[in-house]
């Protein structure tokens, strides 16, 4: 760069919440995405109150009825209201994504920080484990894990969560490798602080931002994976509404009644896209330089 803005860094780097928001809000797409995600979240939580119909109530006589004023998204192959099923399904689709990302991040960051901080044989062992997990694409890994762990919500979350672990390990490791050479880590060692203390107090807080951005991207990915598994019949089991399984069950009627797959599909797309755009916005607001470490979800 030829240019250096010669202000005092004091002004430049003051990054309180307000400053962060002012940088974030400059990106309109990211702000809209944030509102979309918040909106979808509220709708899922309040599904019982918002959904116009019971998502399980069927009326075979009116099956595959196209969208109307009464049923804006139409009815599915059993005559259930698709709008209500999408609202309720958001609980599962997004709930699974949140839980598995939380799980994956927790395990991955822990292993990655330990790996990067200690180095040596600890690092070797964890890295070989990571290589093994990374040899399969995330979706395939998730499918393999589900088949091993069996069907059910818990094993679904566990499978998707574990399938995201290797990327978190890589990310946290490379960040920890940089952090461990920072002088404040050396200063803490000179003081006589222990390794666990240093990792918790000095390393973790300084790598939180990239992890958060990575997790946002991964929300987009895990929603796709959860839907994919649902579509394949490996995810949430019917009659429970979940976006992926709704497409899976509706796919036989795709020509006769496209609305049965179209609406859940649109919601998967919107949600996944929103998380990715939000991730970009967060990344640029927090620190654009982190781009080189982070793997986009989709």
């Amino acid at each position, binding site marked *: 760069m030829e240019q250096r*803005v*010669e*202000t005092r860094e004091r002004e430049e780097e003051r990054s309180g919440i307000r400053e962060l928001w002012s940088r974030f809000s400059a990106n309109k797409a990211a702000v809209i995405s944030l509102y979309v995600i918040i909106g979808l979240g509220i709708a899922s939580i309040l599904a019982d109150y918002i959904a116009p119909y019971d998502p399980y109530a069927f009326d075979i006589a009116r099956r595959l009825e196209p969208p109307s004023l009464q049923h804006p998204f139409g009815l599915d192959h059993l005559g259930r209201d698709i709008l209500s099923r999408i609202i309720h399904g958001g609980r599962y689709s997004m709930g699974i994504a949140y839980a598995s990302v939380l799980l994956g991040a927790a395990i991955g960051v822990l292993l990655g920080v330990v790996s990067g901080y200690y180095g040596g044989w600890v690092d070797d062992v964890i890295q070989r484990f990571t290589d093994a997990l990374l040899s399969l694409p995330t979706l395939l890994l998730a499918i393999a894990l589900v088949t091993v762990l069996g069907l059910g919500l818990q094993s679904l979350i566990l499978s998707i969560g574990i399938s995201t672990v290797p990327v978190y390990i890589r990310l946290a490791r490379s960040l920890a490798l940089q952090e461990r050479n920072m002088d404040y880590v050396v200063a803490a060692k000179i003081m006589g602080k222990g390794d666990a203390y240093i990792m918790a107090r000095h390393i973790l807080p300084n790598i939180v931002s990239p992890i958060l951005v990575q997790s946002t991207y991964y929300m987009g990915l895990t929603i796709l994976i959860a839907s994919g598994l649902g579509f394949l019949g490996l995810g949430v089991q019917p009659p429970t509404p979940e976006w992926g399984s709704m497409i899976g069950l509706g796919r036989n009627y795709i020509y006769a009644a496209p609305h049965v797959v179209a609406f859940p599909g649109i919601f998967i797309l919107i949600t996944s896209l929103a998380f990715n755009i939000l991730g970009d916005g967060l990344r640029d607001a927090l620190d654009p330089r982190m781009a080189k470490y982070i793997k986009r979800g989709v």
Partner: protein
Amino acid sequence: MPLLEVRNLKVYYDLPQGTVKAVDGVSFSLEKGEILGVAGESGSGKSTLAHSIIGLVKPPGRVVDGEIIFEGRNLLELSEEELREIRGREITMVFQDPNTYLNPVLRIGIQVGEVYEAHLGIEPRKAIDKVVDLLRKVRLTDPERRVESYPHELSGGMKQRVMISMAIALKPKLIILDEPTSALDVTIQAEIMELLIEMRDELGAAMIFISHDLELLGQVSDRLMIMYGGRLVEIGETEEIFRDPLHPYTEALINAIKYVRKTELPTLEGEPPSLLKPPPGCRFHPRCPKRMERCSQVEPGEYLVGSRRVSCLLYEEESDA
């Protein structure tokens, strides 16, 4: 007619937090073959000044006002194309960190040869003899072998010699040096300085030498300009300024580079000013040991004292102008 005349130059940066007045109304001129040292701390605007002369100010920065007259033409009014003709040929620049400017995957010979290609249309491979001569001129050891080297095979001092060779290749009239030796060891630094003075004598090129190191500028510059908070503080003959600094800030800087043993070093309390919210009146007044009541209310003009120009109310009366 001076080679370069900068009049009332203002360069601002528009940041989300506000407007940074990096250079705020600076005027000076430069004669042919003269070395002008520009001194200041970080945030003084000295680097922005250098970049604006060569037309390298990019958004969010913008030149708000002023004229930069080089050989009778106002550089600020030229098209990008006309400017490119001048930049790299008539006016060249040497930067602090050669690593940012040398392409790591190209051999030295090719990179230096590119200068000839860009401005004279000579193919880099055919210019190789010229390049060897040039590298010999900047006293790079073993130039025949060095043209085959990659940048990482060279030490910091050698890379800076390569940068200087590129800057002098087309016999420019003005070379701008932005902290060219700050990243180098003192003994290497001394050699580079010697080389620069030699180049000036040989080519007759004028130089604007930017540095935070006043001791260094004292060795090379004919005239010296001190900047503070985007403003000119004092400008005049280097020797005179060292002998008798007029502005209290200049005085503090000169004191700061004296050698004293086992007694407190003379200090300047406080910190350099914020360019977002510069103090009212004289920008130096919050730190000034000689401040008067008016200093926080009145912006000092620039006053002529002998052959020197100084921006301090102490000299309001004495001024010849």
